């Protein structure tokens, strides 16, 4: 029973396992430690659902607005001057679809942990990309919600864009750490038989 990962944030776990007697306490800890996904409790189960809808919703919108103009999406990626030309079109064409898919999975609550890890990584990469553009004095629109390319006001936009991505990275990381939340397909599929 040791070495199992804790699946609820500390505040949530404090509500269970309060029975007396060493055997029952162990049993309670056991069932908690295995993280039965059907058992969601505590404030995080609701806050986590909110986080999934927020982050997932942003991904869906960000992806969908880029789908109509794939060539523009490629140009937006190229404008960062970070990736080799061989990779630029793949990212430009593939990233919007990945964003939509990840967003839908988060909203539906399917594979929350793995999608939340992906979401965290993507936001970290975006922050790094924008910071790199800023540091090199590039004047580009981040292309986060379509668009991209030259932007005369870019330097005043960079801090806000980075703050926004960090603001979405945080709930993503929390979901990766504590994926058990209300109303998820995960709970439905992984429920104790």
């Amino acid at each position, binding site marked *: 029973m040791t070495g199992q990962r804790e699946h609820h944030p500390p505040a949530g776990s404090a509500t269970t396992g309060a029975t007396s007697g060493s055997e029952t306490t162990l049993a309670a800890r056991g069932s908690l430690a295995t993280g039965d996904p059907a058992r969601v409790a505590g404030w995080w189960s609701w806050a986590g659902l909110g986080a999934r809808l927020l982050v997932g919703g942003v991904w869906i919108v960000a992806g969908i607005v880029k789908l109509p103009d*794939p*060539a523009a999406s490629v*140009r937006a990626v190229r404008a960062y001057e970070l990736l080799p030309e061989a990779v630029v079109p*793949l990212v430009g*064409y*593939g990233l919007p*679809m*990945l964003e939509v898919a990840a967003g839908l999975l988060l909203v539906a609550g399917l594979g929350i942990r793995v*999608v939340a890890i992906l979401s965290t990584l993507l936001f970290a990469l975006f922050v790094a990309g924008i910071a790199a553009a800023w540091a090199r004095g590039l004047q580009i629109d981040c292309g986060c919600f379509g668009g991209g390319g030259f932007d005369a006001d870019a330097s005043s936009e960079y801090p806000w864009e980075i703050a926004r991505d960090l603001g979405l990275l945080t709930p993503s990381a929390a979901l990766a750490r504590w994926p058990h939340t209300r109303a998820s397909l995960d709970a439905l599929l992984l429920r104790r038989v």
Partner: protein
Amino acid sequence: MARDARERVRAQQRQQAQRARRRRRLVLTAAVLSLLALVVGIGISVQLTRSGITQTADEAPTGTIAEFGIARGKESAPVTLTIYEDFQCPACRVLEELTTPTINTYIEQGTLRVIYRPMAFLDAASTTEYSSRALGGAGCVLDEAGRDAFVRMHDLLFRNQPPEGSAGLSDEQIAGLAAQAGAQRSAIASCMDGGRYDGWVAAATDQASKDGVTATPTLFVDSQQLEFSDQEDPRTTLSQAIGSAARP
């Protein structure tokens, strides 16, 4: 004793259930990752097709230089001015209005060769992808009626530039300008109708982005990018750059 046995059985059952759950979680993770990979794979191929970027030289209109450039002036001219511009770009229109007489003078003197590098990245600035349609039409004029007609069409498109956010000029109106420029109206209409240069337009725009051009107008005097400032008349900036490039 009986209680111990029951406990042991229960513990065993718990372990089995736990193993089963872990297995299902693993299968779920693998399924989700495969789904994402599949979606991205399909996305890349679909978007690649939809982007319309084709790179075959035989799709370029006859009369282009290096596939996407349209040249004016003597090939032996000591200075080459390359102009990246979009027919939907207001700043390009203003620059064209201001500098065309200057440019024409240098060309007549034999000092300057101009290479227009039209691109169409402002489709979102109209409701009808006017940027791409206008360049497609200009490509038709170049192919059907030659370089001089293209230059006239180029000037006409800037002079008749639709405002941003509008529906732009219709294909019929573009064909009308083409007729003014000296092309045969019906030929241009059918060329545009079939979208003959859609791939060329997309490829020209993609190549401009590969050339590092993220905005229009972007001008190069020989290989030196020209920087305009708010403090100086663009005609002065341009003349000085051409002047110093022409000096041996």
